């Protein structure tokens, strides 16, 4: 339910029930929408660099090559040269923070994880590890593509410059002054705003974000442990290879069959590396939505803040109006220091009262303006946010379904490989 806080005709504040639900039609997620229609984007390579950091210490970091090419030109038959520039992870973070602040109602696509988490033992947790760098490269490309296909974010100037202007981009971002807008209250993890009339839809969305995050974390933890175990199962079979080889040395007729079967056992053991690498893709897809859940919760928090500020403005206005009334009628209905002191030290002079009333008049005018503004802000936020939430929901359902499908296909291919290897081994055993 969308609650509207309205100013009623007698200047008192009322809450009225709002419009129930929203009307929308199912839209397919467009991968080629918006910026992507005009431009091909890819993160092609990663490279190690060394340089001096902010505190003048030597550091090693990785940079990623972003390549872009206008689509129109390509379709004309000419193949224009790729534009490219290098960016490091921290610049991606800066871009994302900028987008978060500038478009508070958007579910901003997440970046790949900063540090490797949910790793199984063979997988390195080292940021410099080439496998990790490679997976990060893919994740960063995915991030850019997501932003480029977002109906609102894709037309952002800073984003466009990120893709096209290597030098001076950072300064340009800071010049927008977005950091001032970034509400420090939101960063505080323990920040709670007591919202009097929480929007049920957003509360539900936040709850969904919590649950999604929890369940995907669980899933990733189980997967990491399962990957470890599966690795063990396959690798131990490699020991068969060795013992069959040794055994074949003391056999006459059985020797050949054993020896060749042993080779197939070695192949079987080796096949687990590919299997787990493919599974890693699935884990990465889940991780993206793990972080998306976070983005969703962030947006709901932003809404709470907007709501809170509106309620604060309304509260402020109400108290000012009350003061006005008391001063005008001379009755003190609420306890106030002013009231007490005036009782103790005598009433104010009529001039003082006049001055005060005038001040309150202006303040109330301002207050009413602010409430109007904040109301409009809130409305605007809710409208835009809900559009993006619906877009996100569709995207999520589509993507996760696709992920499950590719997971199933991967499992089937793993089974096929297993059947083949064991059939080969069986043939060898039959020749014993």
């Amino acid at each position, binding site marked *: 339910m969308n609650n509207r806080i309205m100013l009623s005709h007698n200047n008192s504040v009322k809450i009225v029930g709002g*419009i129930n*639900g*929203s*009307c*929308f*039609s*199912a839209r397919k997620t467009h991968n080629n929408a918006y910026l992507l229609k005009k431009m091909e984007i890819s993160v092609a390579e990663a490279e190690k660099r060394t340089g001096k950091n902010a505190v003048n210490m030597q550091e090693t970091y990785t940079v990623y090559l972003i390549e872009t090419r206008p689509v129109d030109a390509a379709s004309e038959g000419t193949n224009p040269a790729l534009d490219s520039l290098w960016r490091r992870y921290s610049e991606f973070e800066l871009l994302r923070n900028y987008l978060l602040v500038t478009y508070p109602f958007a579910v901003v696509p997440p970046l790949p994880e900063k540090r490797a988490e949910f790793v199984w033992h063979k997988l390195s947790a080292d940021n410099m590890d080439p496998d990790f760098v490679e997976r990060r490269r893919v994740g960063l490309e995915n991030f850019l593509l997501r932003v480029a296909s977002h109906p609102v974010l894709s037309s952002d100037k800073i984003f466009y410059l990120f893709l096209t202007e290597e030098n001076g981009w950072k300064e340009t971002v800071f010049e927008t002054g977005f950091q001032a807008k970034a509400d420090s209250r939101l960063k505080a993890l323990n920040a709670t705003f007591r919202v009097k009339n929480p929007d049920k839809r957003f509360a539900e969305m936040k709850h*969904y974000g919590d*649950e*999604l995050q929890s*369940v*995907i974390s*669980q*899933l990733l933890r*189980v997967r990491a*442990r*399962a990957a470890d*175990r*599966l690795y*063990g*199962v396959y690798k*131990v*079979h490699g*020991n*068969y290879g060795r*013992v069959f080889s*040794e*055994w074949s040395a*003391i056999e006459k*007729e*059985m020797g050949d*069959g054993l020896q060749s*079967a042993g080779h197939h056992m070695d192949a079987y053991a080796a096949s687990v590396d590919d299997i787990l690498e493919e599974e890693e893709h699935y884990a990465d897809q889940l991780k993206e939505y793990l972080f998306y859940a976070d983005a969703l919760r962030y947006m709901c928090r932003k809404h709470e803040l907007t709501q809170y500020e509106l309620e604060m403005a309304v509260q402020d206005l109400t108290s000012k109006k009350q003061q006005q009334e008391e001063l005008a009628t001379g009755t003190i209905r609420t306890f106030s220091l002013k009231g007490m002191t005036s009782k103790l030290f005598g009433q104010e002079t009529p001039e003082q009262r006049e001055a005060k009333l005038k001040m309150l008049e202006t303040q109330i005018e301002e207050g009413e303006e602010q409430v109007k503004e904040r109301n409009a802000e809130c409305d605007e936020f809710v409208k835009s946010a809900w559009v993006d939430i619906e877009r996100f929901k569709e995207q999520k*359902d589509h993507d*996760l*379904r696709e992920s*499950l*499908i590719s997971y*199933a*296909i991967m*499992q*089937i291919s793993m*089974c*096929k490989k*297993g*059947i083949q290897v*064991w*059939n080969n*081994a*069986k043939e060898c*055993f*039959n020749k*014993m």
Partner: protein
Amino acid sequence: MSSAGAPRSLASSGQKSIQDICHPLSAEESALNPGSAGLILPNGTPVDTSSPASSSSLLNRLQLDDDLDGETRDLFVTVEDPKKHVSTMETYITYRVCTKTTRTEFDLPEYSVRRRYQDFDWLRNKLEESQPTHLIPPLPEKFVMKGVVDRFSEEFVETRRKALDKFLKRVADHPVLSFNEHFNAFLSAKDLNKRQGLALLTKMGESVKYVTGGYKLRARPAEFAAMGDYLDLFTQKMGTIDRIAQRIIKEQSEFLMELREYGPVYSSWSSFEEDLHDPLEGVSGCMSNCSSALEELTEDMSENFLPVLREYVLYIESMKNVLKKRDQVQAEYETKLEAVVFREDKKTAVPSDVEKCQDRVECFNADLKADWDRWENNKRQDFRQLLTGMADKNIQHYEKFSIIEVSMLLKLLRHPQNQKEINNIKPI
């Protein structure tokens, strides 16, 4: 390798069947009095039976291979129909042992008796005692860990039945062991217990009964030394394979534990999703089925693969004992011979006990060599069967797995787009 189904009737004309050839060991006189048995080869030439060694090895050459037709077989044995018996003291399984034979050693042409594992064990011990020069086929393991393996599960009982069947068939096909009177009793006696006390030993049995004389062996013939070495290395390899198999079972069990966690997580995810509810629920079900499939594979390794390996290790222990006994016999002979030679100046004839020793040695060597060949053959078959069985189980497992995954995939692909559109349109 063994004949399946109903035994065929014997060929009554044409080549002579084995029963027409007098077994040198069952007719003790003929063994010690060469030439009186009148052994004749199927092609009509007389057999030189001047020494028991040559006749027994000859007989082994005449012995039909397991793979050849059963036309000249005259003894068919099967183990079937396991049944559970519950008494106040214990619960146990009995098996029906069916025999069909034309041998005169048996009173009847057919027998059907009920035997339990204990009885098979008794038989094997008796065979080892009474035929110490021979390699006695192995039995499935006696003890199984209660709680780990269900002794009364269908799979376990069937595996055991097959192993017991193989055991009896191998004894029945052995030219010497199949004529053993304990074997006869096992197959024919109504009540085996009564027979267990009878101390019927053939004279030959007596003559090969040995006291551990503690004689020192000079030189082990190369082929027997090779057997010993081979058995040692083979045991090592069996041990390694056993350890690997156990490790695989452990890793698979731990993987299974994790796999089992997937189902509930996907299920709880589906509980707060709308469109994704059905797909996620489907994945959850799929994970549960995959767990069951893996469980079956692991169980099979424990119940079928490991026991056979262990049987072979026990079997090899008993074989090594036979080799030791052979060494003993040779050592006794050598020692006695030495003593005689030492006194050769007395110009006496070689005493008969030394001659007997020589006979024993040669007999033993011949029996052992023949049995070794048989053992090599059986070993090859057994391991071919064991390893192809292991491969089969793994193949079946992956096939089950992929069927489960394919069905899940089909459910996922069945995207109800139309239904979705209908659901999404809500009134203002």
